[in-house]
């Protein structure tokens, strides 16, 4: 790609990974399983998340393979239903919701605000164990027959009309929910109470702002879906009648409670990704984020408005027409902060000094795909077009543009960006740039045809479909194979780089965050001495001055 790069690696002959760091401090499996160190917990999360991601990905592969032909020839319809249900459950509850917060957020929030650890390290470890318990339960469910309700657990289907493992899957989601509540709670407390001297709210990196907003959503929205799941479980087991229409309950109430969480949940998923993009774009254009306060407040605005739009998932489900008007209007409002963010990021590039390392490529991918994802969301939020487009592949494409094109791109951008900090070694640049491009191409091939399919009316969750839709489905499946390669590559070269990667040094990107001002990999306490934030956030002039001073003192 570009010939110029800002990586200022230390001289390889003398460079060493610091002897004392959080990885080398203690050894043995137990030292990992009982750790309170936020960085080690982040690594635990990273490993387990990747595991679940590839299981979910394999299921997605099966879905695409089945859809290669119009008939149900690869698997029976009930198998297909189980496959897409488990794909949804695993990807949403065990990958997307915890992805950036639990790995990068866990690793970086204390470092960015100059703290030694999260406020509640034991709770942090507990949330990993809850996550694992939930995840393994989900895998167990899958192994013992699966579940075929769709990840939305719609009543009365989930309570009375299927005889698969709804209870264990619900329990898995319930447990994972508490894991996410505890993570969010920990972040909020940490951001409020553990900031280093001088670290005021408006000196917080935007990554922290985004996580703060997402954490508020996690803490306040997740319990509502928890109680909805409890009620579904009670209805299934002892037959109470809260959602059961034959007993006088209203199945729409379940939808209300479910979407009260699950709509904010998409903001839980995307906000941390937006935080990553802010950091990456600023660093690689070597420029303060354009309109810092606007971007910070737009995160908060998304979180706040995010609570008031949930019923736009139910426009054709028989909620009152007045409610449709109100929720549709509020949905238009929540689209605006995302637009602000997109333009602010674009203008961050203006008069910057841009280089095109892998994280930046992923960030560009994010900008394009998230713009499409966000704008198509408006199609679904507008009550008129929603009638035609909802419950079709249009919604599938929209969701994947936001979640895979947005969140996953951001996740990969972040993993590459902070990989040197986490491991002390660089990933190989050329091949990873290639992987970023492959992912982008594969992604568009996979999901863009689905917009057209949706407009044509192909319903989602169909194991078979009318033959005239085949062409676009073949495109989509072909794209998915490219996408699969794009996701496998990083695993290979990142693992390779653990041993053979170039040694990164403290600050290979010349980034300004506090996390870059300490050794890589960091000490268990993060900083040798308590940092004091005496400069602005994204203060590249301060960084220059620091470098000159260092050169002067060494020389």
């Amino acid at each position, binding site marked *: 790609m570009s010939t110029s790069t800002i990586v200022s690696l230390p001289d390889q002959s003398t460079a060493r990974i610091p002897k004392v760091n959080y990885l080398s401090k203690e050894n043995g499996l137990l030292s990992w399983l009982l750790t309170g160190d936020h960085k080690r917990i982040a690594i635990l999360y990273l490993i387990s998340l990747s595991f679940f991601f590839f299981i979910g990905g394999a299921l997605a592969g099966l879905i695409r393979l089945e859809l290669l032909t119009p008939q149900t020839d690869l698997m029976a319809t009930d198998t297909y239903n189980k496959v897409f249900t488990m794909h949804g459950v695993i990807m949403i509850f065990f990958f997307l919701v915890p992805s950036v917060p639990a790995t990068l957020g866990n690793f970086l929030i204390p470092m960015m605000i100059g703290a030694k650890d999260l406020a509640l390290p034991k709770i942090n470890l507990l949330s990993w164990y809850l996550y694992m318990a939930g995840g393994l339960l989900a895998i167990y469910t899958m192994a013992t027959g699966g579940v075929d309700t769709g990840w939305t657990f719609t009543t009365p289907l989930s309570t009375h009309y299927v005889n698969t493992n709804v209870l264990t899957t619900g329990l898995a989601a319930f447990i994972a929910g508490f894991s996410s509540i505890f993570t969010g709670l920990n972040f909020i407390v940490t951001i409020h109470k553990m900031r280093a001297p001088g670290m005021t709210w408006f000196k917080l990196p935007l990554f922290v702002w985004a996580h703060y907003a997402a954490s508020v959503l996690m803490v306040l929205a997740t319990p509502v879906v928890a109680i909805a799941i409890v009620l579904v479980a009670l209805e299934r087991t002892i037959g109470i009648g809260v959602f059961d229409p034959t007993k006088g309950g209203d199945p729409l109430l379940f939808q209300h409670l479910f979407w009260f969480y699950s709509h904010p949940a998409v903001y839980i998923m995307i906000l941390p990704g937006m935080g990553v993009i802010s950091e990456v774009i600023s660093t690689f254009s070597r420029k303060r984020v354009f309109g810092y306060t606007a971007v910070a407040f737009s995160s908060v605005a998304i979180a706040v408005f995010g609570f008031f739009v949930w019923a736009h998932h139910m426009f054709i489900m028989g909620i009152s027409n007045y409610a449709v008007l109100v929720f549709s209007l509020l949905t238009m409002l929540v689209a605006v902060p995302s637009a602000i963010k997109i333009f602010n990021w674009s203008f961050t590039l203006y008069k910057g000094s841009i280089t*095109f390392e892998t994280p930046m490529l992923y960030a560009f991918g994010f900008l394009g795909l998230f713009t499409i994802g966000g704008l198509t969301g408006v199609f679904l939020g507008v009550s008129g077009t929603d009638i035609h487009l909802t*419950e079709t592949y249009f919604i599938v494409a929209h969701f994947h543009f936001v979640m895979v094109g947005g969140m996953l791109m951001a996740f990969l951008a972040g993993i590459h960006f902070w990989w040197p900090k986490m491991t002390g070694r660089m990933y190989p640049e050329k091949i990873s740039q290639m992987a970023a491009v492959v992912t982008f191409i594969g992604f568009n091939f996979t999901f863009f045809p689905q917009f057209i399919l949706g*407009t044509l*009316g192909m319903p989602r969750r169909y194991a078979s479909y009318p033959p005239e839709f085949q062409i676009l489905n073949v495109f989509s499946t072909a794209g998915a194979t490219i996408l699969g390669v794009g996701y496998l590559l990083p695993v290979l070269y990142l693992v390779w780089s653990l041993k053979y990667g170039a040694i990164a040094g403290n600050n290979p990107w010349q980034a300004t965050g506090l996390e870059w001002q300490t050794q890589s990999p960091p000490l268990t306490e993060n900083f040798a001495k308590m940092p004091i934030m005496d400069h602005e956030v994204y203060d590249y002039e301060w960084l220059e001055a620091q470098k000159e001073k260092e050169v002067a003192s060494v020389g």
Partner: protein
Amino acid sequence: MDHISPVIWQFLVKWMTNFALFPPEASKIAPQMDALYFFMVLVSLIGLTVVVLLVTAFSILYNKERHPVAEQIEGSTLLEATWTIIPLGLFLVMFVWGALIYFRVFTPPANAMNIYVVGKQWMWKAEHPGGQHEINSLHVPTGRAVQLTLISQDVFHSFSIPAFRVKREAIPGRYTTVWFEATTPGTYHLFCTQYCGTEHSHMIGDIVVLTPEDYKKWLADSTSGASLAQNGERLFASLSCSACHNTRPDARGPSLAGVYGAKLPLTAGGTVTADDAFLREAILNPSQHVTQGYAPIMPTYQGQVSEEGVIALVEYIKNLDSNYRIQQTLNTTELLPESEGTAPAKSPAAKGSGSQGPATQGTVKP
């Protein structure tokens, strides 16, 4: 050509012949919906182009070689205000436009012909007023507003006709409605779009749009002998509804003639418009919908009548313009052993406050 694999060749031919970006427009609402859709596509394309252009231009102009030192810029309130207000304005235009279309799709015209649709795992059952039944298909005429009254017997289903751009969930326990006016004869897809269990993807069918003449022919060919209202009448008699709902002066229930569309005062206070949903509720949960002046003595029929049965009853009550039909039913009831009636009352005068008559229909709550 022989170096192209036949599979790919076929694929390409298929693609070229079948490629479409949007489904056929076969209803009156479809062009309106598509106008909004294309407006939104246009706005999205412009927005996307702006973002892509900005990013590309800045990447070229300010890459490190060309522009080695970045200029630190705080931001610009003016610019930020611009890209807050313009998207907001556009979104609001879309909102209003969309709301108008939503309004149209879910507000049937008064003269719409009503067809009942029952969704169940995994089929659609349509009940025409003339008594024609259909499974997984629906015949409708062109040029005539058709209202669908949907209900599900088990789980959520969703009745989707992409070519008409309409879709509505069929909910267990409650009627929902949607309407359309087909414009182009042909056969179109009918999908269930709400995931409803194992055979969800096979809960599909055909919407057959016929010219009015063909439709008449079809109606005549597929009649089952009795109209829906006649089926309802039979049910009305066999459930002994007429034991109370008759026109005798000592009748224990309100007369049902002309009740449809009327505004009824309730014992519990307030009034309610007797529409399909109300009639269904009044049959299944009568005690909560007692008309003023009557004792809450009607038993519930929940679990005794199927959804199809309720539909037939509702259709029957809807068509009771005068007491004439009830009289007839009463006569039939007398043949049943448990009927307690003596001679049917001669007076055709409607009894009780039950029927305020369609005259009050004009005072519908805004």
